[in-house]
């Protein structure tokens, strides 16, 4: 194995390896969590966040517009405070509603933003006023049973 042949093969090897890494990074995976851009922070308080986790996506009209940065418990108001990073390219009015939704029937939870009609735009550090908590299965079931019971009683 001549010296130059050896170098050639090693070069091919390294190039192929790096190419594989690049393919995995760009074609196979998505770069969204690498934060390719500026973001601004928005807060929202919820009665119940359900199964929402940090780094969950924030979508509006089904398109990802940001990521949940952190979740903390507000001990005075007994509500959950969710801090979100929204992409700087998207602007939302001050009366935007944040709801916690589930993707699919049993999928992971995300925050959905519905824009309102206010003229004023949210700035970094603002808190959303309108929120809708996650749907908790037990409450749904007990509500259903209660409705069923209420239906049955007056009919007698």
């Amino acid at each position: 194995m001549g010296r130059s042949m050896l170098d050639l093969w090693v070069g091919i090897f390294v190039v192929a390896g790096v190419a594989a890494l690049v393919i995995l990074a760009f074609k196979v995976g998505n770069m969204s969590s690498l934060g390719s851009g500026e973001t601004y922070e928005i807060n929202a308080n919820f009665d119940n966040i359900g199964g929402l986790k940090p780094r969950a996506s924030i979508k509006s009209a089904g398109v990802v517009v940001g990521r949940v940065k952190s979740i903390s418990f507000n001990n005075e108001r007994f509500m959950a405070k969710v801090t979100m990073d929204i992409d700087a390219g998207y602007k939302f009015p001050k009366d935007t509603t944040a709801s916690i939704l589930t993707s699919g029937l049993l999928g992971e939870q995300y925050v959905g933003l519905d824009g309102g009609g206010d003229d004023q735009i949210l700035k970094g550090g603002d808190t959303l006023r309108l929120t809708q908590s996650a749907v908790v299965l037990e409450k749904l079931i007990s509500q259903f049973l209660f409705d069923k019971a209420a239906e049955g009683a007056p009919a007698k």
Partner: protein
Amino acid sequence: MAHRSLPTIRSIGASAIDNVMRLGYATRFIGLTIAHSGTSFARPGLIIRELYFTGVLSLIIILVSGLFVGMVLGLQGYQTLTTYGSESALGVLVALSLVRELGPVVAALLFASRAGSAMTAEIGLMKATEQLSAMEMMAVDPIARVVAPRFWAGVISMPLLAAMFSAMGIFGGYIVGVVLIGVDEGSFWSQMQSAVDVREDVVNGVIKSFVFGVAITWISLFEGYDAPPTAEGVSGATTRTVVTSSLAVLGLDFILTSFMFRGI
């Protein structure tokens, strides 16, 4: 009066102490290797030469195995996903399994058996034929000249090989899933793209393969360097390399996975 089982207990204790001492020696050995790496970086030709023997010569087995593993994943994955009507998620299944786990782990196991055992045998034989002593007598530090270049070559090769394994595997899954079985090509790639996250999955996979590379190369080089200079000694060392490396890879995989993938 000594109990009948005392000799057994004594030998277990003795071998336990021996193993701890050996681990200490191994740690000192790797410390020396890294400390004496100056020559390797000043003369990259040394590392390049070893890259050929550890990396390039492992290419065939890695690429072919990757292809087959991916193809099997495609087949098996399809079987299972059809029962839930989720064939379009085949791309996700194949890509995540490979990038997170199978790529780094299987590539590491193959690397240990092919390149690791070769390194052990080579260094063990150099020791047995007094080549290392000859080098010492010529005032050339064998650790700097022989061991360190192999260490860095192994550490560099491992992540590259694991990435190539994963890439070939995804291609294999594509061939079986889309081309042969007929899963929709668009949803194969698009669902995969949205589910595989670069930081979470790809980077973690690379970190894993890097850690495996260090572990395997360390074990291979140490076993070779410490082998008794006889035929049985070298053959025993080669076997130990493969066994210890494989166990280390699987153990480290569990530890790393539990750190990286909790709460997802």
